């Protein structure tokens, strides 16, 4: 097993555990309020996720996979609005993307 991968996993895993467990011990009000730290904590998650949405979709858009991309994105949004489930939206969007890709190959 690569030492690089193991160290990376341990660093990220330790941080994940600290993020999930730490605030349950420190304060039930952690992350609340309107100070700079609260705003930073509040913004970092959405910023990270938005970044990854764009970073993962951009190569597909540049590769001109437009129809499957629109089908996939629209399905994710529609399923999310309908069921409010990350799992259902993810699986349904992937299915729509696959079907649109398949229909474009015939």
């Amino acid at each position, binding site marked *: 097993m690569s030492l690089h991968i193991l160290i*990376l996993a341990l660093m990220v895993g330790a941080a*994940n555990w600290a*993020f999930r467990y730490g605030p349950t011990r420190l304060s039930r009000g952690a992350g609340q309020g*309107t100070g700079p730290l609260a705003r930073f904590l509040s*913004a*970092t998650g*959405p910023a990270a996720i938005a*970044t990854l949405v*764009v970073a993962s979709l951009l190569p597909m858009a540049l590769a001109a996979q437009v129809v499957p991309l629109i089908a996939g994105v629209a399905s994710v949004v529609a399923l999310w609005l309908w069921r409010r*489930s990350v799992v259902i939206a993810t699986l349904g969007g992937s299915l729509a993307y696959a079907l649109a890709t398949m229909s474009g190959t015939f």
Partner: protein
Amino acid sequence: MSDEAPFRSGLVTALPIAMGYFPIAFAFGVAATGAGLSAVEAFALSLIIYAGASQFLALALITSGAPLLVAAFTLIAMNLRHVLYGPALLKSAGDAASTRHAWAWAWGLTDEVFGAALGEIARGRRFSEPFMFGLGLGAYVSWLAGTVVGALAGGGALAGWPTVQAGLDFMLPALFLSLLLSILTRPQVPVIAVAGLATVAGTLAVSGTAGILAGMIAGAVAGTLRRGRA
């Protein structure tokens, strides 16, 4: 009520999550071995990190040769949102809130587990740590099992199934987009817009890794500088 019943209830509540996690984890296992990782390394990432979107991104960072600290910072920043889950869950639990064994069950507080726990409490279930253990364990085991099956199937397992491959290729962007929708609030729209624009600019001007860093930093800074309620 004994501690067994809420534990079993937690496992039952975890079933829909487990059914959803398995194929996503399978896709991760396939992607990991396809990217050159061994099955053991793929399993270790799921066991130790246990955060789907981060794990997919870890593959991209590892294969692109990103420096260890840059990769770690990027992945850790992505999961910072989890600090809000514990306090939010305990706040909704009210008088029933207990943290004696939180060092263990809090490990399972993923986006979906947090959402499911919050939903159960909203529907009248009394918070209990055994329930949280059951809920978290069901999801975790499914994630690990999916990873193992995907990794053992191997990166070339879907070579003859291009449609399935296409669906799995889109699973990561779909997961990111779903997560974004799940945390989307009106005050965060400027943060998301700044992060998205900076990502496009950084990616087109420099590289994909630079775009990711630029997006995360620009978005977080925009949110910190923003006046008013977070």
